[in-house]
């Protein structure tokens, strides 16, 4: 038993006998290849949302996009940390962490600082911070399983959890990412596609207000491709928004019964 003390024995994950290689269709951009899960290039995975996943939180939501599964809990508004100075607008505190089994290889289950700050930036513009002065709203996300496009899923799920907690917002925030593979743009990439991508774009926006709260781009993009990708993301965001709203409406009508 590991509990018997002493130095933990070093372990490794057995690798397949046949080495997996970069699938040929990713390297040759001219070929019309199929995506590993059979989707079209501009087709998103089926999105599933449910609010009220965690009872002990003020609000929460669970989201599942293919193998990407996340839970977001919202606590507060509650007292800010003692060390904080007075602030006449509320504070938003975000944290994103991964489970040890989120990735195919067992990880350490650590916090993701970069995602935490990206989540903060994506949400802060949508929340009416002035409605809860002096206090803090905590948004904590746990990625149960990582299946690609983790951050946009976390962001969409977090905005639903905020709505579930009754935090005042201007609009929901929907997040979508696009990967650039060779000459093709593919939306809502899975983990495998993300690891081969040449560039990526993530947009989070408030669909009803048609405002972008966060935009990040990596890789080299020409203007035409950039505009195409932006339009693709924005269209997908407004579709996602409909699904998110339907989820909230369903939860509201269920609680009335």
């Amino acid at each position, binding site marked *: 038993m590991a509990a018997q003390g002493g130095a933990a024995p070093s372990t490794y994950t057995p690798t397949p006998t046949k080495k997996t290689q970069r699938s040929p269709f990713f390297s040759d951009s001219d070929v019309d290849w199929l995506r590993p899960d059979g989707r079209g290039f501009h087709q998103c995975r089926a999105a599933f949302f449910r609010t009220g996943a965690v009872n002990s939180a003020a609000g929460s939501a669970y989201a599942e996009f293919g193998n990407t599964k996340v839970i977001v809990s919202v606590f507060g508004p509650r007292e800010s940390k003692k060390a904080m100075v007075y602030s006449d607008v509320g504070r938003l505190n975000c944290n994103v962490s991964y489970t040890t089994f989120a990735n195919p290889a067992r990880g350490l289950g650590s916090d993701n600082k970069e995602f935490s700050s990206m989540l903060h930036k994506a949400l802060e*513009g949508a929340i009416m911070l002035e409605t809860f002065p002096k206090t803090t709203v905590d948004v904590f996300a746990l990625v149960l399983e990582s299946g690609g496009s983790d951050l946009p899923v976390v962001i969409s799920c977090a905005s639903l959890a905020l709505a579930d907690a009754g935090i005042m917002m201007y609009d929901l925030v929907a997040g979508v990412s696009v990967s650039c593979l060779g000459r093709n743009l593919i939306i809502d990439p899975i983990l495998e596609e993300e*690891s081969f991508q*040449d*560039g990526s774009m993530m947009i989070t926006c408030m669909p009803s*207000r*048609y*405002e*972008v709260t966060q935009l990040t*781009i990596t*890789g080299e993009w020409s203007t035409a491709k950039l505009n195409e990708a932006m339009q693709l993301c924005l269209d997908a965001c407004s579709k996602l928004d409909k699904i998110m709203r339907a989820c909230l409406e369903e939860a509201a009508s269920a609680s009335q019964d």
Partner: protein
Amino acid sequence: MVGLSLGEKHFIQGGIDQNLRSDGRKRDTYRPISVETGVIPQANGSARIRIGATEVIASVKAELGRPNALQPDKGKVSIFVDCSPVAEPMFEGRGGEELSTELSVALQRCLLGGKSGAGAGIDLSSLIVAEGKICWDLYIDGLVISSDGNLLDALGAAIKAALSNTGIPRVQVAAGASGDEQPEVDISDEEFMQFDTSGIPVIVTLTKVGRHYIVDATSEEESQMSSAVSVSINRKGHICGLSKRGSAGLDPSVISDMISVARHISEQLINKLDSEISAAEADEDEM
């Protein structure tokens, strides 16, 4: 933190509205840029950039390492920024840490390209010594010495200058090592190779204050911003990375507009920087 009175805020915003900023600049003019290279003798390359009162240093250190198993034909580059508490009392402790991480992430996004290495400013395959076995690892460190706004653009420029200043020793790989063995290397003390820095993008940050956006904002102006978009653009006019700061949402058409303005400004900035860098290199050679 910048503490401004209501009158000062109005003055800044009014100036920007009328295209005459507090220091006499127009909305799309940079402050004077000065470049000095080779400021840290121990590093493989280094540069100091001053934009107005903002001052940053970038240094490049090269070490031999092993390439990543997934990308055996590429070297590795890491970028890390440190915000010295000397520059701003706010940088002490957590405030500086957060800003450091934010700047590091933004620079990595703007300069290192996508996961496959496409669009990277530095050609990662030029860092390879023996495929799958030995490569150069570049450690790029940025240091903020004095802060008066527009840190990201300054750091981007400093890194570009430091990389043009970088010489990497030529390496001879001993033949004969085969299979899984790690080959022996001979590092030359005299021959150095230079990087091709023409592909390295510049970063242009447009800061939105009121209805207008400005380049090269001072920290006073930054305190009035609603949001800012940093675009990294290479000589070909292609976008190599983008990140957004500030809480306010932006209309997609405004973003497209900002990107095309940034592209226009980047042309001038690249030319300006290139001439400054070569002047600085010449200065250094004379000494």
